[in-house]
């Protein structure tokens, strides 16, 4: 059998997710392709033509080039938010999937690592399709721009582990909607995706920089546009890693407290 808490146990939890996804992947991939396509076409080209006409783009690049890589980071954030809220709560509360798993040799750590591994792969899928759409629009055209895929995935992970911790504390899904209304949607709109954070009032700039999305957006944008300098890149990555690690360290005991009684 698998040694307790070894990688093998987490792989089994990953396989459970993959087996369910096998039935859904066509629809999921289609959505992951058309959503960025529509967004980049309407906002990047449509709205972008107005922006380019009035101010010559943003920061010296056409609006579509400014928008698309930022949108990539915002998209993985949304994937993380979706995967780490309702599905996890469902497995704790409604279908008791974790209870079933914990009756086998699997341990709580396997559940957390397995879920984080799964959401990572989901974000890599979404980001890869997004990159292809960017390439279609001519936004992504360098080999370096491919690094925006792992960068955006890291950005999503910075939301994933804290959200798993949050979900572990929820008795029902009544507050889940607020996560999207009060955190994810405001960040999506004000987090530097559609316009530079420097246009925000100073106080909100500080708020924006305290959240992972702005760092993910800057990282992704810098990699796609080829404007990223090393010290800034390292700082962005460090902030994102802190979120990932702190989230994971909090999530593990919270999930254990929830499931082991």
């Amino acid at each position, binding site marked *: *059998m*698998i040694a*307790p*808490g070894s990688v*093998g146990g987490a792989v*089994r939890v990953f*396989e*459970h997710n993959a*087996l*369910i996804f096998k*039935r859904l992947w066509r629809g999921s991939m289609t959505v992951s392709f058309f959503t960025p396509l529509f967004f980049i076409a309407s906002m990047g080209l449509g709205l972008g033509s107005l922006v380019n006409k009035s101010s010559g783009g943003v920061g010296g690049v056409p609006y579509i080039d400014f928008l698309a890589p930022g949108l990539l980071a915002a998209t993985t954030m949304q994937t993380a938010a979706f995967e780490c809220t309702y599905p996890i709560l469902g497995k704790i509360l409604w*279908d*008791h*999937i974790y*209870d*079933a*798993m*914990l*009756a*086998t*040799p*699997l*341990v709580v750590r396997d559940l957390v690592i397995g879920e984080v591994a799964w959401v990572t792969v989901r974000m890599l899928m979404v980001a890869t399709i997004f990159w292809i759409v960017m390439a279609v629009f001519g936004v992504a055209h360098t080999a370096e721009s491919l690094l925006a895929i792992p960068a955006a995935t890291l950005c999503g992970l910075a939301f994933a582990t804290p959200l798993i911790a949050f979900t572990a504390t929820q008795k029902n899904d009544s507050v889940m909607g607020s996560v999207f209304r009060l955190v994810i949607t405001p960040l999506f709109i004000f987090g530097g995706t559609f316009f530079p954070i420097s246009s925000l009032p100073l106080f909100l700039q500080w708020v924006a920089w305290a959240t992972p999305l702005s760092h993910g957006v800057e990282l992704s944008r810098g990699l796609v546009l080829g404007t990223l300098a090393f010290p800034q890149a390292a700082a962005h990555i460090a902030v994102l890693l802190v979120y990932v690690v702190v989230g994971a360290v909090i999530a593990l005991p919270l999930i254990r407290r929830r499931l*082991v*009684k």
Partner: protein
Amino acid sequence: MRSSDSSPLISARRLGKRFGELIAVDGIDFDVARGEAFGFLGPNGAGKTSTMRMIACVSPVTSGTLTIFGEDPARRGPEIRARLGVVPQADTLDLELTVRENLIIFARYFDIPWAEGRRRADELLEFVQLQERAKDKVDDLSGGMKRRLTVARALINEPDLLLLDEPTTGLDPQARHLVWDRLYRLKQRGVTLVLTTHYMDEAEQLCDRLVVMDKAKIVAEGTPRELIAKYSTKEVLELRFPVDAQPALDHKLDGIADRVEVLADRVLLYTQDGDAAVAAVHSRGLRPETALIRRGTLEDVFLRLTGRSLID
């Protein structure tokens, strides 16, 4: 690390479980031998499920000692669980997967290769007579079918010990008998069964030996036959009187039977000879609406021990 054949498969000494202020299990002792079908009989809230969850190594022991296969659940939980099959009180099947996929993915949790998992899944679906529903979603199954699938899933790792928490609660009589039949076959194959139930007939049908639990403690232990002999009588006469006549009985039944229990809806007379008791009741001019002679059961044992019925 296998324990020898003569040592108990499960051994509990002063085993306790607390949830904050609530004492769910209050220092109980029991042993379960290899190949035995062992039962925990008791009403809801007696501590049966808490005990089962500790045996299943999913709920930490609060006090006392517990060993399963001679091992400590706190240190060797995953190794012990690898050899257990668990049928929990509420089904934990995966509603997003098919019947067969539920078994195959569960095999993976035990590190069973995919091909072997598929082979075992097909074999077990046949065993619980669900082979025709293999490709259906679990949601479409009846309650009895879901229960059978849960039993099949618990067998995927060929366990040495099968734990069943109220295996047939909520099932209709036909579905119950089908589950009992499969459990009986497993018992004949030498699988050790530990089950909880609040159905006396289930305990009598399946258990070689059982303990009666009430208010977090074990109040009696023995084979069903021993318990009935000790705490009940060979025959029981059940009398039903018109609703308003029963309180007026007073001591009119005194001396007819070894013991008289007056319940809300009927009167039970514990006696060695039911026919003689009926005759005595009639000779005293009492006219019950119905008079039924039956043999003593575990229900009577429970009533005697606790003064209450198993199912309220």
